[in-house]
């Protein structure tokens, strides 16, 4: 692995490395042990997670054991990997063998998967240590982490507000210093939106570049796993570690995944950047101002920045809220009280299924299953699901046309900054509007990243989004690194590990 030697090393990114890479360098050099590092982060979780509730389980014993193995490699002169000794918080919809994986749902409470997700294996093979499993909206359905069966997660910048979702626990773990990096999953914005609301970097890769094996399925044509980190450099390093073909996921791309770390240093001179009108119209003034400032900074750094309109993106949200629930209603049929998880006993199998699902699923999951079942039911299939699939094509074609003129597109990640806990729980569409700027990338299968860019008048973080065409991760990171270097300094969260 190149690019991790720090400033001055050949090919090293010039941006700030970030806490995860600082740890990896120190552990590999033998100046800090993995075990000390794990103890420090376990202490941080102990200190602040009572207030924030980012974690649904903290893995004291297995984390110490994994740290011991990393330290033994260092002592033995073996290379422990590019993420040596780095504690990682994993969203609790990714399987960890023998460790409960709940999806923040009663229906899977206590379930211990008999296998590890591929991403978990790859992180461990790179020397990272799984320190805990993070809270999410049940089955990743939500934009606030309020839909968890195990209680809300709070935003460290203002604990009265949501952290976003559904990867809210992972975003908070990184933002509050309880883990130097985290994994999330992004079906309609579930990595980028909480990253924006918590002031961290969140990246959704090109569909098919990261294995979904061991990711509990929500909407299989949209789901991708990606990193939440403090810096763009760390995001690229984690993407390079977790990406790549996997025989256990038949929807992985056969082409090699582009390596990104080497692109971070290249600047934006001469790159064509399109600021997408539909990804800034109607957003809060502070958010719009941040996007404009980021665009100006890119122009100042030598990019050719122009405004562009992609009107088809306006249809993204309605199409998404047909396609995603339709796929979810099919995927979640597996929770039937037979092979794992909860069972509510009844006289017949069908009554047992219906009673189990009534008791095991929370309100938002029920709503989405009902919505998806409706959209797929006889008489409505063509009008809703069939039409949404065609709109998906329109969006893909419109983005393809935009990428004829531009190397990357830029817009807001979210229309607002973090909202108050409880503000949108009774109005599903108001909640769904949080995803309006992020769903197009999922429908198209394209990569996108949210980079913190200052704060609003209340000190709440704002995210700027950089979008790229399929397999455009190198140019996406290249632009993101410049946005990061030009971003106003964000005040540390009110609640943060000492």
């Amino acid at each position, binding site marked *: 692995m190149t690019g991790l030697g720090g400033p001055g090393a050949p090919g090293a990114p010039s941006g700030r490395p970030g806490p995860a890479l600082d740890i990896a360098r120190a552990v590999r050099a033998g100046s800090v042990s993995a075990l000390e590092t794990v103890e420090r982060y376990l202490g941080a979780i102990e200190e602040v997670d009572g207030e924030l509730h980012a974690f649904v389980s903290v893995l004291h014993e297995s984390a110490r054991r994994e740290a011991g193995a990393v330290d033994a490699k260092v002592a033995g002169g073996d290379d422990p990997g590019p993420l040596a000794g780095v504690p990682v918080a994993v969203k609790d919809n990714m399987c960890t063998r023998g460790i409960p994986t709940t999806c923040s749902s009663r229906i899977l409470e206590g379930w211990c998967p008999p296998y590890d997700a591929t991403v978990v294996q790859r992180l461990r093979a790179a020397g990272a240590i799984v320190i805990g499993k993070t809270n999410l909206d049940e089955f990743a359905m939500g934009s606030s982490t309020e839909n968890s069966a195990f209680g809300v997660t709070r935003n460290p910048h203002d604990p009265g507000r949501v952290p976003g979702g559904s990867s809210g626990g992972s975003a908070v773990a990184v933002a509050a210093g309880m883990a130097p990096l985290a994994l999330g999953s992004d079906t309609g914005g579930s990595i980028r939106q909480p990253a924006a609301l918590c002031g961290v970097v969140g990246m959704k890769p090109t569909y*098919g570049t990261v294995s979904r094996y061991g990711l509990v399925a929500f909407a299989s044509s949209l789901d991708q796993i990606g990193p939440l980190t403090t810096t763009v450099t760390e995001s690229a390093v984690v993407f390079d570690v977790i990406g790549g073909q996997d025989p256990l996921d038949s929807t992985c791309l056969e082409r090699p995944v582009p390596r990104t770390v080497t692109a971070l240093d290249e600047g934006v001179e001469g790159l064509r950047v399109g600021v997408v009108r539909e990804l800034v119209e109607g957003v809060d003034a502070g958010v719009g101002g941040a996007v404009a400032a980021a665009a100006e900074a890119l122009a100042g750094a030598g990019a050719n920045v122009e405004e562009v309109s992609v009107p088809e993106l306006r249809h993204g949200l309605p199409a998404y809220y047909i396609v995603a629930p339709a796929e979810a209603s099919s995927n979640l049929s597996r929770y039937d009280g037979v092979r794992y998880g909860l069972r509510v006993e009844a006289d017949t199998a069908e009554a047992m299924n219906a009673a189990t699902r009534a008791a095991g699923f929370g309100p938002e999951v029920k709503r989405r299953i009902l919505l998806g079942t409706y959209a797929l039911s006889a008489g409505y299939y063509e009008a809703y699901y069939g039409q949404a699939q065609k709109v998906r094509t329109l969006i893909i074609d419109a983005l393809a046309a935009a990428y004829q003129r531009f190397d990357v597109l830029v817009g807001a990640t979210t229309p607002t900054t973090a909202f108050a806990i409880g503000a949108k729980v009774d109005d599903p569409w108001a909640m769904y509007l949080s995803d309006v700027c992020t769903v197009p990338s999922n429908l198209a299968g394209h990569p996108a990243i949210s980079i913190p860019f200052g704060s609003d008048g209340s000190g709440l973080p704002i995210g700027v989004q950089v979008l790229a065409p399929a397999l455009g991760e190198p140019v996406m990171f290249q632009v993101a690194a410049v946005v990061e270097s030009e971003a106003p300094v964000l005040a540390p969260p009110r609640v943060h590990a000492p």
Partner: protein
Amino acid sequence: MAADHGLTRDDAAYVARLARIDLTDDELDRYAVQLAGVIAHAAEIAALDTEGVEPTAHPLPLRNVTRADEPRPSLDRAEVLAQAPAVEDGRFSVPPILGEAP
């Protein structure tokens, strides 16, 4: 192409049966209203002209993938069954599917 957006309480009860979820009367009342609201927004795309547009089910051109037909270890049966709510003779146990239990 325009669909009827008026999702009724009966529609909600019907899809709940299809989806195998018991709902209380209160839940039905609430979800019927909330779903009708979401459907009304989703229906914004129903009016779009998509004549001649191919549907996209998946972002990648997928083809069937097969692996070499070679024996290899599978998940441990005891470990898998240990997660099941009810087990009998090394198999998953379920209530009767048809008629009376034997």
